[in-house]
């Protein structure tokens, strides 16, 4: 909900400073909104100007900012404040999460890949003359063997080095008694190297040195793409997690206020909550009057009055007045923590999903090993000797090596998530796309998903422009969601500086001796029939003006539901809001099945029920109350304005105003799935043709090289087709 987002209480950065070995201090921040060179210069220069700061560096690609200093008296809040003053959002990162900024795994893979690629080119430069000379008969055995030795000197050390990722993964799996894709790969690599070396020593005509490095090169491209994609999703998930790091202002015995990490708050402690703050832990109000926005927890859009003895739940938003609250439950057993546990349970049940690539590997490994073994035995039985038999078995392993298979899935997922990213959809895990392609039932939350999740003025035509402009000036001084809605509608403009917020009633101001009030009907002095969410505005003795609000549907909700129904999806609405509001929204959106007043636990139970019926469920939700259901669903999507817990529980996050992103994601995921399947079929077809050739001993190095590269290129090109509409 974007009414809440800008006022999020920033965590106190002191808790996030990391102390290095040499006595240096580091603070890592996630900077929002820095997109261009000017932002970069402004932020780095601005922070460097703070006395004591020695290092200030912003990574423009990831939005992460690192500040370093030695002076232990430096207040890190100054750094955050400086960046906020410059006009950007800055959120401290939880230091233990952000440890691995620099992606060493990707670097290693990149180096392995380059070594394989460079040595592939060099070995081919040596081996190609031998092939050509073989055709034209122009090269003596002496020169040929010399070239083979040169190729061996490069291919064997380079192959041994670039093969480390495969060897180590194969060894790890073998030790546990499994065989993954890396086992046949390692076997093929080692056999090929040994046989080619043997052939060189014995002056044979053919060696397969270039095949070793070529194979590694193509496979490493696939590994690198896959790793990059996972890394991207992991970083996105980390950032969402970091956003949840909020601190609480605890009032200590001597009356001073101390900022404490939420997890360190103890039961019975008194916490101060300013207007605009999120409630950090569950508690009971002991002083103050205010209004609260509980929409992230219950799905209810109306602001609710808060007074002494009101129970507050962690995650709700305090709107208008300052409150003192006594913590009743600490972070570990608060409402929020209960939700978190449900989310965790849901995610564990989800992890049994087997990825398409793994299914293919399960099928592939025994078939390839079987074919190679049969070839070996077959040639022995045919009485052609050990050398021919092992050469042909080896050729089978080389030619079937899953270059294309290794690229089939990552190439498609990189292209698909790239395309979705352009449309504002962030895919958090690669296999989410696979799961999304299979869904047949969609559960929507109402508030913030079908609807905008914020009140919108519905009687604009009853209000004169003059009154709107005047009311907006007062509205800009208030945090109340209804006042915000007026301010948003009127656009940017001046606000009344000395306006007073009267918690529970509204906002008032004196302008040139005339009292202006905006708020409840009785307080303003108007008659209300109370049928809709409303707010009244009155200037002096003039007639009171009524502003009526409702949480309207997104512009494209109706069209999206129609399109989803055309795909044959079952659709239902599951909301925590009151029956009337849910019924109206569901009817307007064209959805027949709806449930109102559902608690987070009801929602999760409903998803369990649907899963038990064998439906493939997609949950779209934004509130904290949706988080357990999001985790239970086969796939889940959250809007970008959703609660942080919901964003981290879901597989995808869409930003922007359009619900159509959900439809778009489903379509792209379906296309991606068919591209992956095409790639698998192509790989199977390729093997169907090349394996017999290899079994019968017709594979020469040029044929192997050509076949391997062509299949990899075709698979990658097929993945690129996703970019087109």
């Amino acid at each position, binding site marked *: 909900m974007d009414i809440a987002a800008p006022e999020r209480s920033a965590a106190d950065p002191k808790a996030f400073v990391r102390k290095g070995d040499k006595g240096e201090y580091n603070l890592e921040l996630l900077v929002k909104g820095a997109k*261009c*060179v000017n932002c*970069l*210069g402004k932020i780095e*220069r601005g922070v460097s100007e703070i006395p004591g700061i020695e290092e200030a560096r*912003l*990574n*423009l*690609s*990831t939005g992460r900012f690192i500040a370093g200093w030695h002076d232990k008296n430096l207040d890190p809040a100054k750094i955050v404040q400086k960046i906020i003053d410059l006009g950007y959002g800055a959120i401290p990162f939880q230091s233990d999460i952000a440890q691995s900024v*620099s*992606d060493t795994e990707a*670097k290693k893979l*990149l*180096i392995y890949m*380059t*070594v394989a690629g*460079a040595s592939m*080119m*060099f070995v081919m*430069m*040596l081996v190609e003359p031998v092939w050509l000379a073989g055709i034209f008969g122009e090269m003596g055995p002496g*020169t040929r063997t010399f070239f083979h030795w*040169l190729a061996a000197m*490069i291919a064997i050390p380079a192959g041994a080095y670039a093969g480390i990722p495969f060897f180590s993964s194969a060894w790890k799996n073998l030790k546990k008694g499994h065989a993954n894709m890396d086992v046949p790969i390692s076997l093929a690599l080692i056999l090929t190297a040994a046989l080619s070396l043997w052939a060189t020593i014995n002056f044979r005509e053919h060696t397969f040195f270039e095949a070793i490095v070529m194979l590694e090169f193509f496979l490493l491209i696939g590994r690198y793409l896959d790793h990059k994609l996972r890394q991207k999703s992991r970083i996105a998930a980390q950032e969402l997690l970091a956003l949840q790091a909020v601190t609480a202002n605890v009032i200590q015995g001597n009356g001073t206020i101390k900022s404490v990490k939420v997890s360190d708050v103890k039961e019975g402690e008194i916490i101060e909550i300013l207007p605009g703050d999120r409630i950090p832990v569950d508690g009971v109000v002991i002083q103050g009057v205010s209004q609260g926005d509980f929409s992230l927890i219950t799905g209810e859009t109306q602001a609710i009055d808060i007074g002494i003895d009101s129970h507050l739940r962690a995650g709700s938003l305090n709107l208008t007045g300052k409150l003192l609250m006594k913590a009743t439950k600490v972070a570990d057993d608060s409402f929020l923590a209960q939700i978190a546990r449900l989310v965790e349970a849901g995610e564990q049940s989800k992890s049994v999903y087997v990825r398409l690539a793994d299914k293919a590997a399960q099928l592939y490994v025994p078939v390839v090993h079987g074919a190679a073994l049969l070839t070996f035995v077959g040639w022995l039985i045919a009485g052609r000797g050990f050398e021919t038999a092992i050469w042909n078995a080896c050729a089978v392993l080389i030619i079937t090596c899953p270059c294309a298979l290794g690229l089939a899935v990552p190439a498609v997922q990189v292209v698909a998530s790239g395309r979705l990213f352009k449309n504002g959809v962030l895919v958090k895990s690669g296999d989410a796309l696979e799961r999304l392609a299979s869904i047949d039932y969609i559960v929507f939350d109402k508030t913030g998903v079908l609807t905008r999740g914020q009140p919108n003025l519905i009687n604009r035509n009853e209000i004169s422009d003059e009154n709107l402009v005047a009311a907006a000036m007062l509205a800009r001084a208030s945090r109340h969601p209804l006042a915000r809605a007026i301010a948003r509608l009127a656009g940017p403009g001046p606000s009344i500086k000395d306006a007073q917020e009267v918690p529970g009633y509204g906002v008032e101001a004196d302008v040139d001796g005339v009292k202006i009030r905006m708020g409840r009907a009785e307080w303003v002095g108007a008659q209300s029939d109370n049928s809709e969410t409303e707010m009244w505005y009155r200037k002096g003795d003039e007639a009171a003006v009524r502003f009526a609000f409702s949480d309207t549907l997104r512009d494209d909700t109706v069209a999206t539901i129609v399109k989803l129904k055309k795909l044959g999806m079952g659709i239902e609405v599951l909301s925590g809001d009151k029956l009337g509001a849910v019924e109206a929204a569901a009817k307007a959106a064209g959805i027949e099945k709806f449930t109102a007043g559902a608690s987070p636990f009801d929602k999760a139970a409903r998803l369990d029920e649907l899963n038990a019926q064998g439906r493939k469920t997609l949950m779209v939700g934004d509130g904290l109350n949706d988080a357990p259901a999001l985790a239970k669903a086969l796939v889940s999507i959250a809007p970008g304005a959703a609660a942080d817990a919901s964003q981290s529980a879901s597989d995808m996050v869409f930003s922007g105003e359009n619900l159509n992103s959900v439809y778009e994601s489903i379509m792209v995921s379906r296309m991606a799935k068919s591209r992956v399947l095409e790639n698998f079929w192509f790989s199977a077809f390729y093997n169907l043709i090349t394996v017999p050739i290899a079994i019968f001993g017709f594979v020469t190095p040029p044929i192997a090289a050509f076949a391997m590269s062509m299949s990899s290129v075709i698979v990658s090109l097929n993945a690129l087709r996703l970019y087109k509409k």
Partner: protein
Amino acid sequence: METLIFLIPIAFGVAALALVAFIWTVKNKQYEDPKGDASRILLEDDDKPL
């Protein structure tokens, strides 16, 4: 054929040089922030003499 004795080591040397140079750029963190590095050249006050 005698030229091979020169040409092959030269070819190998050039290829090895390129490989080493690339590995150095990777280890030197030159691919961590492509957007930022592209922008930094436009920052005026970063213009220190070499």
